[in-house]
């Protein structure tokens, strides 16, 4: 469903991605690991259409289209979801209102009927329980004054409600205690399905104890330098990134 070929990109003239290839088929979960500054978040942002990145070469095909030609909201409407590393606060914007507006914008773009308020309320409460998000937070402003863990749960709640085709999780594990990590992982695992692709960006292996990836890729210096099964993640956990970078350099 997603095919990235020889992608190069820079920020303020500084080259970050230097020929990246990645292929994600429906039903697959891909983990992208790598040291800080390797370009993991840049990849997540470029896929979701964040401004400020210059794509200098290569192509990205998503469901048969040129992804890079689509506006940010069009990508979302066509099923790309980014769970953010630092979810943004929207003071005064009710969390539930935001979610229902978002759901309906996506449904409308897909030519589906809007969800009625009653069904929405039922669904959101059920899903909130699932991701262990306090119901009170549904009535508050989006992420405003939420703890780090609450923000991440809220991201997962949005993801489960919006049922994306391609979910990208950008360092969703950062700053989470072990219970929150488990809840977040449960949310992700429940979304695993034969139609849905997932890209899990993470620095540490520990999230992958709970979300078992089909493929693990190591990103370094803007390129995928090694791909393998889940055992690669364990090896990285045990040995760090240094040996791999040395090997690649050699």
């Amino acid at each position, binding site marked *: 469903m997603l095919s990235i070929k020889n992608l190069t990109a820079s920020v303020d003239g500084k080259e970050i991605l230097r020929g990246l290839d990645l292929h994600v088929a429906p039903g697959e979960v891909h983990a992208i690991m790598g040291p800080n500054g390797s370009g993991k978040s840049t990849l997540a942002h470029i896929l*979701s*259409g*964040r*401004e*400020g990145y210059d794509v200098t070469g290569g192509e990205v095909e998503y469901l048969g289209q040129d992804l890079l030609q689509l*506006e*940010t*909201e069009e*990508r*979302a*409407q066509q099923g790309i*979801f*980014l769970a*953010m590393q*630092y*979810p*943004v*606060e*929207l*003071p*005064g*914007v*009710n969390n539930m209102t*935001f979610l229902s*507006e*978002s*759901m309906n*914008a*996506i449904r409308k*773009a897909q030519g589906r009927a809007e969800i009625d308020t009653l069904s929405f309320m039922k669904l959101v409460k059920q899903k909130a329980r699932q991701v262990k998000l306090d119901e009170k937070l549904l009535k508050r*402003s989006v992420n405003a004054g939420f703890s780090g863990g609450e923000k991440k749960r809220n991201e997962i709640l*949005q993801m489960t409600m*919006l049922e994306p085709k391609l979910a990208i999780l950008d360092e969703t594990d950062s700053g989470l205690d072990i219970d929150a990590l488990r809840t977040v992982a449960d949310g992700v695992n429940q979304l695993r399905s034969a139609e849905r692709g997932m890209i899990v960006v993470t620095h540490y292996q520990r999230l992958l104890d709970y979300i078992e990836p089909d493929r693990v890729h190591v990103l370094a210096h803007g390129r995928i330098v090694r791909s393998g099964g889940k055992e690669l993640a364990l090896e990285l956990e045990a040995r760090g990134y240094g040996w791999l970078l040395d090997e690649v350099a050699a």
Partner: protein
Amino acid sequence: MSQTSREMEALIEAEYAQGFITQIASDTFPPGLSEAVVRAISERKGEPEWMLEKRLQAYRHWLTMDPPEWAKINHPAIDFQQISYFSSPKPREKLESLDQVDPEILATYEKLGISIDEQKALAGVAVDAVFDSVSVATTFRERLAESGVIFCAISEALRDYPDLVRQYISSVVPYKDNFFAALNSAVFSDGTFVYIPKGVRCPMELSTYFRINEAKTGQFERTLIIAEAGSEVSYLEGCTAPMRDENQLHAAVVELVAMEDAKIKYSTVQNWYPGDQDGKGGIYNFVTKRGECRGDRAHISWTQVETGSAVTWKYPSCILRGKASVGEFYSVAVTKGYQQADTGTKMIHIGEDSRSTIVSKGISAMHGSNAYRGLVRVAAKAENARNHTRCDSLLIGDRCAAHTFPYIEVKNPTAKVEHEATTSKVSEDQLFYCRQRGLSEEDAVSMIINGFCKEVFQELPMEIEHQAVERGKSDAKHKEFNRQCGWQRDP
């Protein structure tokens, strides 16, 4: 400037939907101000002699005054001799009833979404329609009269209820108060008079719709609302004007008097023509609004949504004279293009246990400049006075400005005065977040802005909601506001 900021600017480059001109024969005084003009206005209105005397007194005092220069606004000096001080649509014949209001004027109000035809009007809302210098129609007067409520043009009140007007006019805003109040006291033309008798809860929403149509004409509205003991009234005013290249002056005075246990809720949706994208044209809006809680437990609440005018200078205030009286000020002020606003309030605590709340939300975009200026004064005798002020500014883009000028004067040690202020920007992170969830940039901006203004929108009367619902929209207040700001196009 980043790509996003530019796009945001494109979004808020609003088209002014109310900028059309009504082609109508009018009877307009030649430009210029003199004692003769003041006399001519008074004569035209058939006023009692004492009113003319008051006008002349104000005019003579005005001649000794200079325009205020302390506000954070910049505009070329106003040439008061270039303004016409009276303009009235020419009656085709003597008008006997609403059926005889000039169809062009009726059509104008219909176009603005205001019905002055009682048959078609919204249930529960009575309207006074002021066109240039005269009130052209006031609806539902008979129904209101059944409860003893007087709702009419102030020029009529001067003829029909002179003693009542004489007792209260200038009692809250004396003519010496300031330069523009003095000018208004000399040349005011029309506005609304409301009297709610003792113990009566006004059965309808009252509203006035001000329209400036004629070129080179100033509008000098004068509104007086009196709520007797234990009474209650909610009043809403709306304002629009055609797009013209020259600046026009609107200098109003509004006075509210609330007696014991009375409650007045006064809401404004000000959308005078703001000028074009280069800052050409637009209304200069210099307004003095003040309410006095004369009785114990009286309650006055000001809510304003200021989106129009090239320059706004207004400070709806409360004199909290009664014991345990309450004053409130809720404001949203938007400045975009080259608009400038210097607005806020004064809460003067005189009575014991008096309380006041101020919530001000300023939004600046493009080259807009927005200043909050507020005074909280606690007099020596005001035991246990309380004030809470919250003053937030939101910036969109990187060429606009927000300023806050709070003044606090406390002469009683038991007072509790709180001031909170924040300044924030609509960030690219927020926009990206919303768009990543499938919302268009336009919807994202309006959602963030509406979230910012929420506390104030909650205070707007239902009437605005109804007006918008009539147009077939949900989430009405917000969408109505968006439409007015041009963030959301009219369907």
